[in-house]
């Protein structure tokens, strides 16, 4: 992008989990996007992407929510959010809802092309190659499923994390295996989910890492919640917090010392 071009206008999709549990990730996203030269706005009219309804088979309710999201966000050049799973719902799945509604389908497709998960947006669209941040840790990275398989998020966060000073990436086995979160799955089938997250924790521990990084708060809360229940010292952060140099506060699930 040339210096004279107008900066792209980005509507930040905060996601409901970040809104409620971890505002820091939202602010970290704003910082990263602004550093990359974007003009960021956070529309107050946003709520949820509709995924809980979609994955529960309620296509009608999802359609209503999807229309609302599109109406709020289509005026920006891009809709960007710090979650592979929400952004995949918007980018890859909204069109499933409008198969029988050609005018909306066209609108959905025009919108979908401009929807991005934060890390892939920064690298693939804005060409960010490095960040100015420091975080001393030996960390392991969990590839959350939607981002990985529906949006192709794999190398982007790793490449940027490599530029963080003091940071060392230590891959775990099976980083691409689901952590057992799965939205409502984890409350509907708690025993299976518990087994899956327990296996995941074993892989994290075996890597020898002291920190766990990922790009989806739902998964991070799942793994962090299990780590905390088992009394493990591994700290959990969202990628954006590390890259924005905003991981100074308590980790996800850690007690605020104030």
């Amino acid at each position, binding site marked *: 992008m040339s210096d004279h071009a107008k900066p792209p206008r980005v509507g930040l999709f*905060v996601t*409901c989990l*970040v*809104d*409620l*549990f*971890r*505002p*820091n990730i*939202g*602010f970290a996203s704003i910082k990263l996007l602004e550093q990359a030269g974007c003009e960021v706005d*956070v529309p*107050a009219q*946003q*709520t*949820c992407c*509709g995924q809980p*309804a979609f*994955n*529960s*088979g*309620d*296509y009608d*309710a999802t359609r*209503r*929510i999807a229309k*609302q999201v599109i109406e709020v966000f289509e005026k920006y050049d891009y809709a960007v959010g710090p979650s592979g799973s929400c952004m995949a719902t918007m980018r890859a799945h909204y069109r*499933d809802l409008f198969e029988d509604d050609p005018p909306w389908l066209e609108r959905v497709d025009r919108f979908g092309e401009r929807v991005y998960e934060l890390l892939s947006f920064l690298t693939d669209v804005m060409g960010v190659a490095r960040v100015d941040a420091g975080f001393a840790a030996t960390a392991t990275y969990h590839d959350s*499923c939607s981002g990985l*398989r529906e949006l192709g998020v794999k190398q982007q966060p790793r490449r940027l994390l490599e530029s963080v000073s003091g940071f060392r990436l230590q891959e775990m086995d099976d980083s*691409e*295996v*689901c952590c*057992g979160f*799965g939205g*409502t*799955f984890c*409350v*509907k*089938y*708690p025993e*299976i*989910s*518990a*087994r*899956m*997250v*327990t*296996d995941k924790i074993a892989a994290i521990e075996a890597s020898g890492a002291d920190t766990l990084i990922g790009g989806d708060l739902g998964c991070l*809360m*799942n793994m*962090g*919640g*299990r780590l*905390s*229940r088992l009394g493990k010292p591994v700290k959990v952060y969202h990628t954006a917090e590390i890259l924005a140099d905003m991981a100074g506060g*308590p980790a996800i*699930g850690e*007690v*605020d010392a104030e």
Partner: protein
Amino acid sequence: MPTAASHLFKQRVPAALADRDLKAAMDKAQDGFIGKREQAVSQYPGFEALRELGREIKDHTLAHLDFYLDRYERQVQRNGGHVHWARNSNEARTIILDLCKRANARNVTKGKSMVSEEIGLNGALEESGIAVHETDLGEYIIQLAGETPSHIIAPALHKTKAQVSDLFHAKHQRYGFHQRLTEAPALVNEARQVLRRRYLDAEVGITGANFLIAENGSNMIVTNEGNGDLTRTMAKVHIVTAGIEKLVPTLEDATVLLRLLTRSATGQEFSAYTTLSNGPRREEDPDGPDEYHVVLVDNVRTEMLGNEFRSMLRCIRCGACMNHCPVYGAVGGHVYGWVYPGPMGSVLTPLNVGLEEAGDLPNACTLNGRCQSVCPVNIPLPDLLRRLRRRQHETGLDSRYSRAALRLWTALAARPALYRRAMQWGAVAMKRLAGRRGRLRRFPLAGGWTRSRDMPAPAGSTFQTLYTLYKEGRRR
């Protein structure tokens, strides 16, 4: 059709999770399958293109299935064989029983066939006084144990070697094998010796089909034990059971799918035995059966051809989806409660036995998508499972509790101002509940979560609340 126990899914999960032998067997099997597939795929540079070609072949065949079925039938007849059409399991069993009775069969050998499980064939034959001898090692093991397959290509996957050793020791004494064997090759050898006698006794041999080839009426089966060959050549009558989706237009097409199948299933470039059977023995043939019959089973397949589940008919039964499924890996195949387990089974079972019976199956999935990413014909399994959830929702079959929770959430999500207030209220309330610990060990309505995990407490203000302050600060 065998009766389904899929409604017991949730009930049977805890015992499955607690079963240590099962865990040992599943971990070993999944690791092995995943590693071998990965290696085979990485050694085949054009695998993605091959996958695409496989998908195209299947889609094309399904779009013209009537044509290819007709062509196949005529070719089989030209080769001197017979094709029988079964609309459902009941008809299929009747046809096969009649064929066995006409052959005065007392003993039947069987190669591996999931369709024969689907139609409940063994039970029907045994009820008529016909002894069934499974010749695939895995099938043989579970038959001996009185169980059902837990995996579509490795039926005894859920058993450890020690369990097989105990089983053989208990059941093979009557054939004069008294020594307890513990090593795999010795166990296989003992089973071989027992089975070999069966081939000589059998009047009828029943096999499945991996591909039915329309251009020449051939049936292709792949095995690693050669039992399929013996089953089909030694008996006087050879019966093939297959679903109508097994059709492919040409031998060339079958070889494309074969390359995908073996790599995806066991990570092999080629299975040890790839057998083509065309019909009864011709005069110049050194061996072969006197009669050759193909029983084509429909069940719900024609229905699927016409609805949103057609892509599921591309399935070539390789098992990769279950090998890579973390839920299947955790609970094993039996809790799925019917013939087909894992991701593909979670689609097929509700379509066959109904969503009332198998409503848990499409839901017991995180939609992580690993199954689709390894499926050799790229079946959108997560999407199909979601479509089943949609059916469930639209016919009121989902649970009342989850309906209510969902309605509340979507009502909130549709009202941004109210939503913002509710979230802020939630942030404060949860922070209070958590107290100084900063995390929740128990939380109303989230027992499923907090039984094994803490719930991190919110910071006390939502992002939106903080962002409003932040913007005001910036303006000042």
